């Protein structure tokens, strides 16, 4: 079985530190720039006509179930949609746009982050940022914990909630299997206006910049995905502010792994120093107890000694006292007797 073989390999891999220590980072600085020459796709909504050809292509190349309404039914666009297990990407229409005369469209789908939140959050490494730029997903190891869905800032991964036995996460693969075969992603091939342009990410950024430069009146001066969440392989140009197109502009430019890096960094420190600290405290309480016990014992011994000495002196004293008392008593009795006799004498005299 491949799993068991793999298991062994992984154990060897993780335990065999030679590989782990042997690798060097791409950049000498603290800033890793991602795979050089990785691919991406630029979506330009000023060129998109909203024909849903890309959705149809996506459906076919990924062998997804046929949709409830056919892809040439554009009334589907009347309401805004999101990705679901049966649609890895959707096109939405926005009618109330400021800068352009006609409605604008927006593609919603996996942006294939340079530093994917899903990959960073996955505890079985089901996700991989491949050097093609595509973020691939391996259903054969997925546990179905859905933490990737929590982590994804774009709300892209979807889950087959209706499957009891082998539910999978579903999301755009940027047609990774096709890319390896040397084919373009299905949606890119299908687009009649090339509103989707496939290319090296660096080239696409230059191209997008050029489009903005040529027509500053048409485009918003923002390439969505250039910096969002540390950058994404998919890039977007728009004629209207992205936040009007259902794209969040408040995500920031910090890559997802960076957000957990500090918390993860605290783990070895806690694990490293806690035993020392706690054992130290334990040892100190123990020592305190010991000292307290010793002192107590000492105190008891001392108390006993003292008590003994005291008792002895007391006895002596008591004896002396008793003797004295005895003498005094005798004297008293004598006196009494004498008085008595003198008293009776006086009475008789009277």
């Amino acid at each position, binding site marked *: 079985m491949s799993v068991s073989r793999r298991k062994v390999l992984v154990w060897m891999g993780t335990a065999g530190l030679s590989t782990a220590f042997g690798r060097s980072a791409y950049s000498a600085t603290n800033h890793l720039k991602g795979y050089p020459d990785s691919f991406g796709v630029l979506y330009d909504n000023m060129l998109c006509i909203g024909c849903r050809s890309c959705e*149809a292509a996506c459906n076919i190349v990924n062998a997804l179930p046929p949709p409830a309404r056919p892809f040439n039914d554009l009334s589907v666009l009347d309401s805004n949609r999101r990705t679901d297990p049966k649609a890895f990407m959707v096109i939405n229409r926005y009618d109330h746009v400021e800068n352009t005369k006609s409605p604008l469209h927006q593609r919603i789908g996996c942006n294939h982050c340079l530093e994917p939140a899903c990959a960073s959050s996955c505890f079985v490494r089901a996700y991989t940022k491949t050097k093609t730029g595509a973020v691939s997903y391996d259903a054969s190891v997925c546990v179905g914990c859905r933490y990737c869905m929590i982590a994804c800032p774009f709300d892209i991964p979807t889950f087959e909630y209706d499957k009891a036995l082998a539910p999978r996460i579903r999301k755009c693969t940027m047609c990774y299997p096709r890319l390896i075969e040397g084919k373009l992603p299905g949606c890119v*091939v299908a687009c*009649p*206006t*090339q509103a989707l342009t*496939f290319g090296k990410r660096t080239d696409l950024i230059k*191209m997008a910049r050029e489009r903005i430069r*040529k027509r500053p009146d048409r485009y918003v001066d923002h390439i969505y995905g250039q910096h969002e969440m540390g950058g994404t392989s998919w890039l977007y140009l728009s004629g209207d502010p992205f936040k009007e197109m259902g794209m969040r502009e408040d995500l920031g430019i910090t890559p997802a792994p960076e957000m957990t890096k500090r918390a993860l960094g605290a783990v070895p420190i806690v694990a490293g120093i806690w035993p020392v600290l706690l054992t130290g405290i334990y040892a100190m309480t123990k020592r305190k107890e010991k000292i307290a016990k010793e002192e107590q014992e000492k105190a008891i011994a001392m108390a006993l000694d003292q008590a003994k000495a005291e008792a002895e002196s007391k006895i002596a004293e008591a004896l002396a006292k008793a003797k004295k008392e005895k003498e005094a008593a005798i004297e008293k009795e004598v006196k009494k007797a004498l008085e008595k006799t003198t008293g009776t004498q006086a009475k008789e005299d009277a």
Partner: protein
Amino acid sequence: MEMQTLKKIKELTATVMVTALLLIFMFSSSIVDGRQIKSTTEGCCRPDVLIIDSAKIFGDLERQPVLFFHDKHTDALEKKDKDCRTCHLSEKDRLSPKFKRFNDAGRQEVMDIYHSGCMGCHTEMYAEKDKTGPVEICGECHRDKVKVQSSRQPMGFDQSLHFRHLKATGDKCERCHHEYDEKTKKLFYAEGKEGTCRYCHMAEAEKNRIPMRVASHLFCIDCHRKTRASGKAKNKIAGPVKCAGCHDFDKQQLIKKVKDVPRIKRKQPDVVLIRAAGKGTSGKTSGGQMNPVPMDHKAHEKYNDTCRACHHESLDSCSECHTLAGTKEGKDVKLERAMHQIGTTKSCIGCHELRYGDKKCAGCHAFIQNGQKQSKLSCFRCHMESLQPDTEAVQQPEAVASGLLGSRKALAGTYADEDIPEKIIIGELIYEYEPVGFPHKKIIDSLLQNIKDSQLTNYFHSEKGVICQACHHNSPISKKPPRCVSCHGKTFDEANLLRPGLQAAYHRQCMGCHKEMSIEKPKSTECNDCHKATGKSRLYD
């Protein structure tokens, strides 16, 4: 035993309550929705909204400023046979624009004037059982929430209105136009120096100058009022005196427009030869300069409603301030910039390029990069080669200009009909769809039709083949331009990312042009409108 059961029931109730409490916590998530609901009720709009915040000049306001509806008050007073002087004091026959005072003496004084003035009148009206404004509660005037929005539209003179006033006053420019004498501190009329009001009266008061707002209200309304009062209004039309008359959008549309307004007579030239001159230059045209540009001043007067469209600071000639090197008066905007700057209506090219937004033009021009990155030959469309020697241009510029303008061939056109293919069959990509019959000639004809009525479009499209350039782009003008397929190929060409593939090139060109020109049919998402489906399903290889 019974007691114990009772106790247990109690405990059970407690457990249920705790669970319920938890549920309420969770349910609150749907109640506590952080998104703010935008208010859809915007309140009614009025053109006569004034904000009374006169005390602002004395420091922060103690209460909210008061929204005052001017026309409402004018109407109310009218019903009582009262006029403007009820509220506005008059001095030398002119009314003060301020409420019951000439000057803002001090915070307390201003406040008292408003409180006693407004409330006094309201109370009086109230006593007479008339409908009136607030009389007692501060918050009724000083409202926290503004329910009414101002719909006030700006007002200005266009050529038609100017002409009507000119006619009404019997060509007496001095009735309105004036200059200010600093020594005598009086206004006087200077013939031949008339300019628009806004050259001197700015948005805010300046030294010796009242702001435009005050000037116009003081002056226009004063005249309108007197015209009405003098009884002449019966046979003549007097201008509006209420806010809505000038500032309401609908009322503005009702202002009579004179067609074919005669030219304003201010001794302006018919034609101009634009060249470097003015202060700082000797006046001579030296070598190394561009050819001067002839300009049909008279024609341009008709294209614009006001002289200010080009003459933004004064009616002097452009090169007076905008010299080759730039001057302080011209804010260091050089002549070259003043004529070529894009994104402004004040420069030649800036204004001309605005025309690209026109539906008739946008189909082609949306694809052509704007600005000066056009072919260098196009420079000479304006900077015409002069037939006369340079000295002539200095001595008789107008003659040179009219000579040049006269030499222009001003009719748009293109190649002979037989050189233009009637129909083109686009069949390079057939698989899923049948070939497209592209009505090539029909399209060119309608483009030519679109540009034939304007001198500007005629002149700039007069060279043969220019009209072809939007589609047959990136190649020299020629009777036989390259075909689309000679440049556009497969979908993904890594070396030429900016160049779309053939399929995208067709779709972008056709759909883009249709979209810009607002051509509804064929619809870009109705594939069958242009090409019929073959029935084969799409391949994605």
